[in-house]
């Protein structure tokens, strides 16, 4: 008998001389084939076949055993059922109702129905088991989950935000490195919400800079109203209670707190399903105590959110990975291998790539000559300062240079003797026009003293101040007043307090009264206004005093910006832009003393 797995059957003469019996066990198609067989012209019966001697029978068994299968069942498949109904709409902040995205959705109501884009979960590269990988591949698209779980959002997320959620959802280690203003907060909250609702998480710790705690609470209220959130704050006794409170699946702590609550973290009673670091560049110094404590928190998943994963060098990114996956990267890795190793862990999008219809940022360079009074003071201070630095010889330190830079920059803002200021004159002229057109402006400076002077001089615009001097508890009130009080035309912000985490997209004018050391920080400041929901172009005025230290710093930073942009263009990581020690000494034509170099 011929077996079906024989390599081949020859339709030769010797074969045909023998009769063939074909066995089609339980085969539906066997019958039809046999029928065709008998009528097929090629197989007409041979003449006088009835008189042939009895033929041998050759059986071809075609029915094979059924194919082998592999299978998985998902008894704990996520249900994504909300346990608590969201708060009534009337409790939502007013801003929500006025959200430009909502307005946009209303406009789109009458548009013809289009097939929505489906965002699929994809397993991360480090997931090896087929079952684990299929678990994610076989989940419904995010849009289906959102619809069937009846999850509501204050506005429809952008497709790239859904991609961000799909990126975070399956990952145990991830860096969401979107450019500022693209909604990292919303993406993280929505992913946490979905993971909590599907019972994949039950205990989440979010660590952010202290000034941003209230912002996170507000965002959770908007994007995940049914999720209870507890802020770790208050005296030691209260904090101890909150750390171990099982009622709040999401706890928010600040970096500054880590040191004080180290005992809580080290006592072995904590074990989080997920720890999220906001503004994760805060742990770029891996030897800092905060960084060490954060890394020691017991957890199953680790996510880092940052718009600037590399502020100064690739070591910053390596430090963030020490939190995500210790030892996975090292400082000696070449840029190319670093890019390859991090590709599956880092998601970075920029506004120009994903928000092609977002109003642009318009940069105006306000290059101003110092007033005669300022120039006089400036010249004297610089000459005196350089002489002093030279006199210090080998004992000169970077702090000495810094002090001189700061003194000169302050003169560029206001003449210490007369108060004259070319920048102020320009700012005042511009503000008059802005206020007359019913618009508002943000003015950034690195000095609170500068903000004080501006506050006094610009009193007619009812300025508000948002700086480290304003207690955290009052900062939300300041922002609300700026947003809602029509008489308040400007807000004066320090880079330190106002550069991160605030949503001021109703404001279309930004003034950088003086320049920060690192343009990445300036970009963050600008992106308070130029972010999702902005309706019109944001005009950014960068003020710079020509032929001063400001211009020298600007030139060095611009050179670095170009260099890093060309270096990182392929790897897709943001530019690094700080000033090195050598560059700071170089501002005054000095070189680093030999003893400092050795150190």
């Amino acid at each position, binding site marked *: 008998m*011929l077996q*079906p*797995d*024989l*390599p*081949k*059957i020859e339709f030769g003469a010797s074969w045909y001389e023998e009769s063939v019996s*074909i066995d089609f066990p339980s*085969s*539906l*198609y066997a019958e*039809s*084939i046999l029928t*065709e067989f008998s009528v097929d012209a090629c197989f007409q019966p041979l003449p006088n076949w009835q008189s042939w001697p009895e033929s041998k029978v050759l059986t*071809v068994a*075609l029915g*094979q055993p*059924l*194919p*082998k*299968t*592999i*299978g*998985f*069942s*998902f008894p704990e*498949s*996520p*249900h*994504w*059922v909300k346990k608590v109904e969201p708060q009534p709409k009337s409790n939502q902040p007013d801003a929500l109702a006025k959200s430009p995205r909502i307005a946009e959705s209303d406009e789109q109501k009458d548009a013809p129905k289009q097939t929505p884009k*489906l965002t*699929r979960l994809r*397993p991360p590269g480090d997931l090896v088991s*087929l079952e684990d*990988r*299929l678990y994610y*591949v*076989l*989940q*419904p*698209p995010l849009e*289906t989950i959102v619809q*069937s779980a009846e999850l509501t959002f204050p506005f429809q997320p952008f497709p790239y935000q859904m991609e961000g959620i799909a990126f975070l959802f399956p990952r145990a280690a991830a860096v969401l490195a979107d450019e500022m203003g693209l909604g990292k907060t919303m993406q993280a909250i929505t992913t946490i919400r979905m993971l909590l609702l599907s019972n994949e998480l039950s205990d989440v710790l979010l660590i952010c800079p202290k000034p941003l705690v209230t912002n996170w609470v507000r965002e959770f209220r908007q994007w995940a109203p049914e999720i209870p959130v507890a802020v770790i704050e208050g005296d030691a006794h209260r904090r101890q209670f909150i750390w171990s409170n099982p009622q709040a699946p999401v706890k928010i702590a600040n970096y500054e707190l880590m040191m004080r609550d180290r005992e809580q973290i080290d006592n072995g009673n904590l074990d989080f399903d997920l720890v999220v670091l906001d503004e994760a560049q805060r742990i770029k110094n891996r030897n800092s105590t905060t960084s060490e404590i954060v890394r020691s928190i017991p957890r199953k998943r680790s996510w880092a959110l940052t718009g600037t994963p590399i502020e100064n060098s690739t070591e910053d990114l390596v430090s963030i990975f020490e939190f995500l996956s210790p030892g996975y990267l090292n400082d000696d890795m070449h840029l190319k291998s670093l890019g390859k190793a991090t590709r599956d862990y880092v998601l970075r999008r920029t506004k120009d790539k994903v928000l092609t219809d977002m109003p642009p940022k318009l940069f105006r360079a306000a290059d101003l000559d110092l007033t005669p009074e300022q120039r006089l003071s400036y010249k004297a201070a610089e000459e005196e300062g350089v002489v002093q630095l030279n006199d210090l010889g080998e004992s000169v330190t970077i702090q000495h240079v810094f002090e001189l830079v700061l003194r000169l920059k302050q003169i560029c803002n206001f003449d210490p003797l007369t108060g004259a200021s070319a920048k102020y004159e320009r700012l005042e002229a511009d503000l008059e026009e802005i206020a007359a057109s019913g618009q508002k402006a943000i003015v950034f400076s690195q000095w609170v003293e500068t903000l004080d002077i501006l506050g006094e001089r610009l009193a007619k615009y009812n300025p508000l101040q948002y700086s480290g001097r304003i207690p955290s508890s009052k900062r939300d009130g300041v922002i609300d007043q700026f947003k809602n009080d029509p008489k308040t035309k400007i807000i004066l912000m320090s880079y330190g307090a106002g550069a991160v985490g605030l949503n001021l997209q109703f404001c279309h004018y930004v003034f950088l009264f003086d320049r920060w050391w690192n343009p990445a920080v300036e970009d963050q400041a600008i992106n308070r206004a130029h972010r999702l929901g902005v309706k019109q172009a944001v005009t950014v005025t960068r003020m710079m005093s020509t032929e001063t230290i400001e211009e020298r710093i600007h030139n060095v930073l611009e050179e670095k910006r170009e260099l890093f942009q060309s270096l990182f263009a392929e790897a897709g990581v943001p530019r690094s832009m700080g000033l090195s020690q050598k560059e700071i000494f170089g501002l005054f034509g000095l070189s680093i003393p030999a003893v400092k170099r050795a150190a």
Partner: protein
Amino acid sequence: MDSQQKQQIQIGFLTVRKHASLGFVGGLLVLNGLARPVEFHCTLPVMPTKAQQLLYGATLDEFVAGEQIGRALLAKAKARPQIVLTDTLAALSVRHLVDSPIAAIDSSWSKNEATLTYPQPSHEAWHRLSVEGYKLLTMHEFASDSKQLESFLGSLSIDIVEPFGRIEGALMEAHPATKAA
């Protein structure tokens, strides 16, 4: 229909694809009424023998897709789907071997995948019906399935084409050699 009821529903999504060098692969995804996965099975690649190729002729695809792969997958499923939907016309023949109503969707998730093609049926005699905007085909002999399919799908509001994209992704995970270069 509320969420609880939807979770009790089970729908089978069956697909069979042909790969130029690996042969046939099939996948069965059972979803509940909320489109969540309940069970997934896929076959190892099936390469018909030369004898099968010669003797089944034009009906080979139907034999492999329906009788071999469809039958094996449905036999393995612990969950008993109330209905089975397929994007592979050639797999409809499995209806002769199972009790559940089966329909093919006259539209597939992705026909552009270069390395995986659809097995082809040997004839075009189908019973056609339209449910919730989807064009469905059933076997002539089982035209009575139509009513069941209409009433079942009419009470659900899930996308019945999208799950085939998941199966395609899962087949590529299970058989990486099927991924396009």
